C-alpha cells in the first residue's frame, strides 16, 4: 500500500539533523501507514512522506518538513486514521 501513497521521492529535502527550532507536530512512526491524508489536509504543506525510510509495517511514514510553516491547526491529526499525530501549540515566545 505504501507504494500507492504519494511518494515525495528521493528529491525530498532531508531533515536538518538535530534541528533546534520548535516542532509543533509529532508523528508516531510505528503507527503511521503513509496514507498521506495528513499531507492533503495540511494547507501550508508542512508535511510529506519520507521515501527514505520504511517502518516496521513497510510504510513510508509522514514527516514534518517545514516546521516553521505549521500553524498547529491540527487538521492533519483530525484526518489521521491511525491517530499517529500529536499536535502542540506554538509557545508564546517563538
Amino acid at each position, binding site marked *: *500500500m*505504501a*507504494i*500507492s501513497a504519494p511518494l515525495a521521492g528521493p528529491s525530498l529535502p532531508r531533515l536538518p539533523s538535530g534541528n533546534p527550532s520548535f516542532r509543533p507536530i509529532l508523528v508516531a512512526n510505528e503507527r503511521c501507514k503513509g496514507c498521506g491524508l495528513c499531507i492533503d489536509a495540511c494547507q501550508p504543506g508542512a508535511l510529506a512522506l519520507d521515501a527514505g525510510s*520504511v517502518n*516496521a*509495517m*513497510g*510504510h513510508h511514514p509522514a514527516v514534518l518538513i517545514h516546521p516553521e510553516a505549521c500553524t498547529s491547526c491540527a487538521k492533519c491529526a483530525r484526518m489521521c486514521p491511525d491517530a499517529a499525530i500529536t499536535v502542540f501549540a506554538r509557545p508564546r515566545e517563538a
Partner: protein
Amino acid sequence: MECSTIFAGFGGQGILFAGKVLAEAALIEGREVLWIPSYGPEMRGGTASCTVIVADRLIGSPVVDRADHAVVLNPPSMARYTPLVAVGGLLVVNTTLIEAEPGRDDIDVVAVPCTTLARNAGDDKLVSVVALGALVGRRRFVEPESVHRALEILLVTKKPQLIAMDRAAFDAGYEAGLEPVIA
C-alpha cells in the same frame, strides 16, 4: 522431483504475482504445479505470502512442512519462514529491508538487495520479481526463458507495457543470484 517455494513479505511487494509467474513458468514446461496464496483479512495489516509447489507428477499435500526454497522480503517473514527451510534448502533474503542474519548454517542463503535493485529497475513493486530471479539464478529448477514467457502471458492482456520492465528486474535478480553472495 517435487519442490516447494514460499514467497513472503509486505502486501504491495508483489508476492502473489511472483508466485503466479513461477507457477506459469512451470506450467509452460509441462510440469504439475500448485499455487496457494494467503487471502482475506490476513492481507490487511500488510503481510502477504504464497506457496508454489512444482513437481513432475501429481501433487499430494498442499501443506509444506519442509520448504525447498523460501523467499523473504521483510524482517517478519524471515523470522517466520527461515525455520521451515529444509536442510540444504535455499533462503533468498531481501537485504534492503532485512539487516538481521538468518542464523542457519545448514541451508544455502542468497542475500540480495532486492528493493534497491527493484527501484533501480523502476518500481519498488518489482522486488518479488527480482527475488524470483535470484532464486532461479541460484537454483535453476525452471528455465529463465520459461519465466520470460510466463511474464508475457500474465501481463500481455492487462499491462503489456510492463513486460520489459519485469523481465529486466528478473534478469537483475538472476545475475545477483548466480554467484554466491556473502550473507
